[in-house]
C-alpha cells in the first residue's frame, strides 16, 4: 500500500508495539530549554539513572534570558536559577550542542537546531515545548512533549506514543503579493479551528507550500500546534537539501551523498490515503490579523471584528463576547481601525533572517508612529543577528525607531522583562494571542513580520498591500 510521509517516519522508528497500538518510538534528537527540563533531570538523578544517549541532546536557555543589558547578566534571581540549573544539568549529563547564555550562537531552540544542521530529514525530534512542530519542515517527525516525557526520553531514548491520524492540508496556486507563510498558517487555523487538528499529524503540501523557503516552511509547521495537531510535516525536496548543505552538524562527504539518497525518499507516495483532507487556494489567502484570544479568531485584514449577535451557538457566542471584552474591541469595527501600543517582531514563528528582511523592507526609510510606545525586533539567534547586521538591517530598524535586541523568546511569552502592561495592545509576530500571554492583561494580535512592521509605522493595522508603493 502507498505510504504517507508520516507512515514512513513512524514505521522507521517503532522499537516495539503493544497489542492496543501503543508504540515505543525511538528518538533521534532531543532538544531542550531551561523551563521544562529541570524536573526531568531531577527525576533522573533521584532514580540514579544516566542519559541513554547524551549525543542526541541539543540545549539552550532561551525563555528566561534577557534581550538587552547582557553586561548585567540575568537580574531576576528566579530566572537566573533556572538558567544556572540547565548549565549544571548539561555539565552533569552531557550533550551534543550546548549554547549557554551569551554564547555567540545562543537563541531560540527551534531556530538554532535547524540553522546548525542538528535537525535533519528522517529524524524523530522531541522537545519539552509545543512548538517543536517547527522541525517537521525538514521531513522530520517532531513532537512537543511534557516534562515526564522529557525524563522518559532522557532515560530510555524512546517515547511512548500511539500513532495519530493523518491529515493532508493542500495549498495550491500562487500567493498574492504581501501574503506570507504566516498568513497561510493563520488562514488554515481560521478554517479548521484550534482543535481542528487534534489527534492528527498534518502534512502540508501543494504548490504554495513547495514554493516556500525553509524559513517559511518552518513558520507553517511551527503553527501546526495552534491547529491542535500533534505534528506538522512537509516532504523533502531540493529546497530542504540545499538549506542543509554545509551546515555545521549536517553530514559531510560520502555520508552526505548517502543521506541525500535516503532523504529523497521522504515524501508521500502517490495514492497514499489520509484520514482527512483540507484544500485551500493560495490566491484566496489575504494578510491575516487575529482579533481575539485564540489563534482561530482570525480575519483577513480587510475584515470587521465579528458581532456576537450573529453567532447562533451559545458557547461560541459567549466566547466571542468574552474575547471582545478582553481585547477591548467593538463588534463590527474594521480591523484597520485598531490602534496599537507596542510591536513585537520575533519568536520561533518569525525570527529568522527572512522575517527580519521582510520587516526591514517595510520599515526602511520610515518612522515608527508616535502612539507606538515600543517596537521590538528580537532576532531568533546569534547567527540570525549577525547575518542581519551584515546586511545592515539593524540600522534600518534603529533609524526607524525600533529597538534591536539580543536573541531569545522575549515578548512571545514574557518570561523575561519584555512584556505588555495591562490593557496594552500589541501587533506581534508570535504564535499565541491567549489572555495574558505577553503580560497580564496584555492584548495580542498575531500578524506576519511585514504586517507588524507596517502597523508600527502607521500606528494601527494596515493592509500591507496598500502600504507598499
Amino acid at each position, binding site marked *: 500500500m502507498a505510504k504517507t510521509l508520516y507512515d514512513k517516519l513512524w514505521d*522507521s522508528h517503532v522499537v516495539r508495539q503493544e497489542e492496543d497500538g501503543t508504540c515505543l518510538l*525511538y528518538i533521534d534528537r532531543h532538544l531542550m530549554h531551561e523551563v521544562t527540563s529541570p524536573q526531568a533531570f531531577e527525576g533522573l538523578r533521584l532514580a540514579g539513572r544516566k542519559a541513554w544517549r547524551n549525543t542526541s541532546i541539543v540545549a539552550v536557555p532561551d525563555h528566561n534570558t534577557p534581550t538587552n543589558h547582557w553586561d548585567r547578566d540575568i537580574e531576576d534571581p528566579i530566572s537566573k536559577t533556572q538558567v544556572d540549573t540547565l548549565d549544571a544539568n548539561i555539565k552533569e549529563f552531557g550533550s551534543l550542542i550546548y549554547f549557554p547564555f551569551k554564547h555567540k550562537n545562543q537563541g531560540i531552540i527551534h531556530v538554532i537546531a535547524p540553522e546548525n544542521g542538528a535537525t*535533519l530529514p528522517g529524524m524523530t525530534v522531541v522537545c*519539552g515545548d509545543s512548538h517543536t512542530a517547527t522541525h517537521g519542515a525538514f521531513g522530520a517527525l517532531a513532537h512537543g512533549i*511534557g516534562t*515526564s516525557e522529557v525524563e522518559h526520553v532522557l532515560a530510555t531514548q524512546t517515547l511512548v506514543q500511539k500513532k495519530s491520524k493523518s491529515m493532508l492540508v493542500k495549498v495550491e496556486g500562487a500567493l498574492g503579493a504581501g501574503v506570507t507563510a504566516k498568513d497561510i498558517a493563520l488562514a488554515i487555523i481560521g478554517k479548521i479551528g484550534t482543535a481542528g487538528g487534534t489527534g492528527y499529524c498534518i502534512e502540508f503540501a501543494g504548490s504554495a507550500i513547495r514554493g516556500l523557503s525553509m524559513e517559511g516552511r518552518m513558520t507553517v509547521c511551527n503553527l501546526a500546534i495552534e491547529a*491542535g*495537531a500533534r505534528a506538522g510535516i512537509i516532504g523533502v525536496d531540493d529546497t530542504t537539501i540545499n538549506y542543509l548543505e554545509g551546515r555545521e552538524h549536517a553530514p559531510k562527504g560520502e555520508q552526505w551523498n548517502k543521506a541525500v539518497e535516503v532523504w529523497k525518499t521522504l515524501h508521500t507516495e502517490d495514492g497514499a490515503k489520509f484520514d482527512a483532507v483540507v484544500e485551500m487556494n493560495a490566491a484566496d489567502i489575504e494578510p491575516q490579523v487575529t482579533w481575539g484570544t*485564540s489563534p482561530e479568531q482570525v480575519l483577513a485584514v480587510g475584515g470587521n471584528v465579528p458581532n456576537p449577535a450573529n453567532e447562533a451557538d451559545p458557547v461560541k457566542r459567549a466566547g466571542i463576547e468574552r474575547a471582545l471584552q478582553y481585547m477591548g474591541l467593538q463588534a463590527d469595527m474594521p480591523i484597520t481601525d485598531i490602534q496599537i501600543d507596542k510591536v513585537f517582531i520575533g519568536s520561533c514563528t518569525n525570527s529568522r533572517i527572512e522575517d527580519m528582511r521582510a520587516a526591514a523592507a517595510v520599515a526602511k526609510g520610515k518612522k515608527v508612529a508616535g502612539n507606538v510606545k515600543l517596537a521590538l525586533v528580537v532576532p531568533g539567534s546569534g547567527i540570525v543577528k549577525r547575518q542581519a547586521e551584515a546586511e545592515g538591517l539593524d540600522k534600518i530598524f534603529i533609524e526607524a525607531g525600533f529597538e534591536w535586541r539580543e536573541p531569545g523568546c522575549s515578548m512571545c*511569552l514574557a518570561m523575561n522583562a519584555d512584556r505588555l502592561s495591562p490593557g496594552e495592545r500589541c501587533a506581534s509576530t508570535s504564535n499565541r494571542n491567549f489572555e495574558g500571554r505577553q503580560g497580564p492583561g496584555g492584548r495580542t494580535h498575531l500578524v506576519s513580520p511585514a504586517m507588524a512592521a507596517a502597523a508600527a509605522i502607521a500606528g494601527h493595522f494596515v493592509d500591507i498591500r496598500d502600504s507598499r508603493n
Partner: protein
Amino acid sequence: MKAFTRLNGLVCPIDRANVDTDAIIPKQFLKSIKRSGFGPYLFDEWRYADFGEPGMDCTNRPKRPEFALNQARYQGAQVLLARDNFGCGSSREHAPWAIEDYGFRVMIAPSFADIFFSNSYKNAILPIVASAEIVDRLFKECEATEGYKLDVDLESQTVTTPGGFSFKFEITEHRKHCLLNGLDDIGLTLQHAGEIKAFEEKHKAAQPWLFGA
C-alpha cells in the same frame, strides 16, 4: 506514581471552551525548578484579583468571588468539568501538576489538547472524553445541584451521576494498566532495554548521520 481505581468526587465546572495552559498556570510560575506546590496558583489570573508571583502566600490574596474555585459549594472538588479543547497551548506539564496539586483527580470534557491529555496520565489524573451532549447535561445538573458528585470507576470505565445516569469512556489498555497499578512509564520501558539497544544499532548502521557529531 499514585494509583487510580475509583473515585466518588465533588464536581467543579469551568464553563469555557479553549482553556489554555497559560490560564491553568500562568508563565511566571514556570520559573520553579520543582514539580510540586503549584496548586495554590491554579487558574491564578481568574482566581485572584491581584497579580500572582511565585512563592507568594495565597491565603490573604484578594479573590474573584465569581470564579468557581472560589465558591464555597465547590471546595474540595476532585472532578473538573470542562468544555472543548481543554488544556490547549503550551506543553507545560506545570498545568497538570497544578491541577493534581490542587486536588483534582478526574477531568471530563468533550475534547482535550493532545500534549496536555498525555501529560495528565503521567500525573495520575484521569482525563475523560465525553460527548458534547453528555458534558452539557453534566454542566446543567452540576449547576442545579449543590454537592453534585460523580462516581468514576476506571476498572469498568464508567461514570455515574447521582441520578443513576451512567456512561462509558475510552482509555488505552496501556494507560489503564499504568493508572490502576500506579506504574510509571520509565520503569516499564526499561524492561525492554535490550530491544531498544538492538533497534539503535540497526538504525545507526542504516543512517549513521542521525548519530553524527
